[in-house]
């Protein structure tokens, strides 16, 4: 609809300044620095055959509820219509391209009207009215050849997974079950299946780095117990705990998990290696970490990512979803939504509020992730032709019982390159 496809000039597009190295163990730094790469990502990944997290179903609980979000750079409106179905469409008027909706979220909305010339849309994104369409007193107005049904913002396909709403601009994206695969689906179900989430808070952390540096960080189980001292000392995430990582067939989705293993609690590997993480650190108020057994499987941590930009987090009883939105080459919005569940007791809810201190912009075990991407972005300045080294755990991008690996980071680049044709 009103869309001109500009073919990419393959011959003239040469990644600057060097081609991508062979294999998965090297990542050229220009991929975090080049405006052309950013533009291609928008087209090939964010508009391409992928599923993008939009919102939680519970945020659109009733017909007439809506919210606005972004799929990459593209503004999107997500609604629940009177047929109780979820819809999403571009937040772009079909007339002259203005935003149709300026609010973040609200209720009881029957239609959307562009402020510029009052072109009107129903909650499914259909153009239903054009102001002064027939002119005034027989003069002016749109020509007879103008048909409203031929104009409208692009609509997204919608998929629902255990209360998560995903959308895609692509007609070619596989069904979500196939896209995620059984292992990832099962791990989402473990956290959200059959439960009604309750939003406890929303915060945006503005990261001073390329979006892919944050994704790498999320998928990097190697750094967790080295950069984050708090995590390690309280045995939330010792690499010697039992656990592992799951990397799906595409490489793009992953799960990193760990579980209590009393046998490994006295492990001395860290002391031997004199890693910074070794210290005596005691809480004045240990109730912070006194959670409740929510999942009955001993798993204290499960970080799950869906390509390209979605994270589902369980850290003890701190449950959250994270949406990553690129804003510029070196600027990224990280949207946190902290969750509880509708059937939480008051004590359980208080536990979640306390454990929220672990995560988010001021999180004991996550605040470093807000700055470390910026350290890379600044560090690689002037080193576009150099490369990152990703050899921890080998050269493959497969599931592993060890978390001392960069397999899921390599997996991201495998999926990224497949999407980008690199």
């Amino acid at each position: 609809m009103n869309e001109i496809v500009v073919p990419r000039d393959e011959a003239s597009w040469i990644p600057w300044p060097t081609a991508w190295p062979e294999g998965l163990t090297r990542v050229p730094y220009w991929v975090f620095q080049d405006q052309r790469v950013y533009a291609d990502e928008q087209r090939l990944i964010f508009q391409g055959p992928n599923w993008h997290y939009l919102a939680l179903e519970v945020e659109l609980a009733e017909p007439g509820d809506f919210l606005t979000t972004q799929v990459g750079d593209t503004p999107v409106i997500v609604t629940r219509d009177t047929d109780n179905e979820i819809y999403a469409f571009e937040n772009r008027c079909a007339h002259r391209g203005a935003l149709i909706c300026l609010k973040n979220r609200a209720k009881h909305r029957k239609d959307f009207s562009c402020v510029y010339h009052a072109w009107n849309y129903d909650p499914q994104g259909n153009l239903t009215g054009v102001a002064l369409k027939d002119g005034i007193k027989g003069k002016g107005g749109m020509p007879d050849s103008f048909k409203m049904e031929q104009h409208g913002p692009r609509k997204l396909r919608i998929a629902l997974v255990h209360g998560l709403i995903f959308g895609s601009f692509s007609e070619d994206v596989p069904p979500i079950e196939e896209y995620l695969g059984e292992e990832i689906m099962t791990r989402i179900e473990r956290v959200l299946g059959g439960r009604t989430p309750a939003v406890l808070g929303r915060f945006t952390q503005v990261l001073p780095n390329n979006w892919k540096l944050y994704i790498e960080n999320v998928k990097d189980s190697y750094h967790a117990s080295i950069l984050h001292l708090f995590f390690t000392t309280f045995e939330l995430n010792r690499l010697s705990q039992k656990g592992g990582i799951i990397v799906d067939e595409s490489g793009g989705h992953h799960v990193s998990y760990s579980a209590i293993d009393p046998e490994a609690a006295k492990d001395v590997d860290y002391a031997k290696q004199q890693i910074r993480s070794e210290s005596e650190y005691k809480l004045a108020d240990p109730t912070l970490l006194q959670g409740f057994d929510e999942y009955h499987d001993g798993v204290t941590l499960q970080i799950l990512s869906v390509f390209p930009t979605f994270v589902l987090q369980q850290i003890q009883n701190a449950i959250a979803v994270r949406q990553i939105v690129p804003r510029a080459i070196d600027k990224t919005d990280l949207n946190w939504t902290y969750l509880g569940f509708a059937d939480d007791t008051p004590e359980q809810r208080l536990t979640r509020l306390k454990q929220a201190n672990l995560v988010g912009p001021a999180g004991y075990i996550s605040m470093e992730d807000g700055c470390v991407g910026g350290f890379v972005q600044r560090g690689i300045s002037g080193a576009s032709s150099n490369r990152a080294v990703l050899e921890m755990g080998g050269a493959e991008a497969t599931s592993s019982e060890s978390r001392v690996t960069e397999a899921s980071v390599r997996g991201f680049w495998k999926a990224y390159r497949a999407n980008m044709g690199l």
Partner: protein
Amino acid sequence: MNGNLLQYITQAQADYARCIDDDRLEEWPNLFHGPCLYKITTSSNYRDGLEAGIVFANSRGMLTDRVSALRDANIYERQSYRHILGQPSILSEDGAMVSSETSFMVARIMQDGETSIYATGRYFDVYEIDGAAAKLHQRTVVCDSSRIDTLLALPL
């Protein structure tokens, strides 16, 4: 009486701001009294009644832990704040307990000198008036913006 009240609260708030801006974080938990409550949230969460905070502490021990983590565990670039406070408004009085609202602006100064307006917002405080002093029992920091640049390390 009201004039004195404002004076006591203004003094307590000035002491609080100096404590953080002077990097005397170890003294920060001692500025809270009674059943301590400290929370940082945003105006949209506050308006919508969403409970979670960016920082949430319901004991002075949790404040002490926050300081210990900042000193010994967490990694962040050296930075300092400069708090600029507005005049407190008394919202209500109930015996010795007084609620107030005070606007603030906090500039963040990075180690290379880069200075930015890091946060603006309101303090919703509850004080106990004890003699000629206002003792802080609760502080809810409501930031105007939902966007936090890079990370929030030092308390507001």
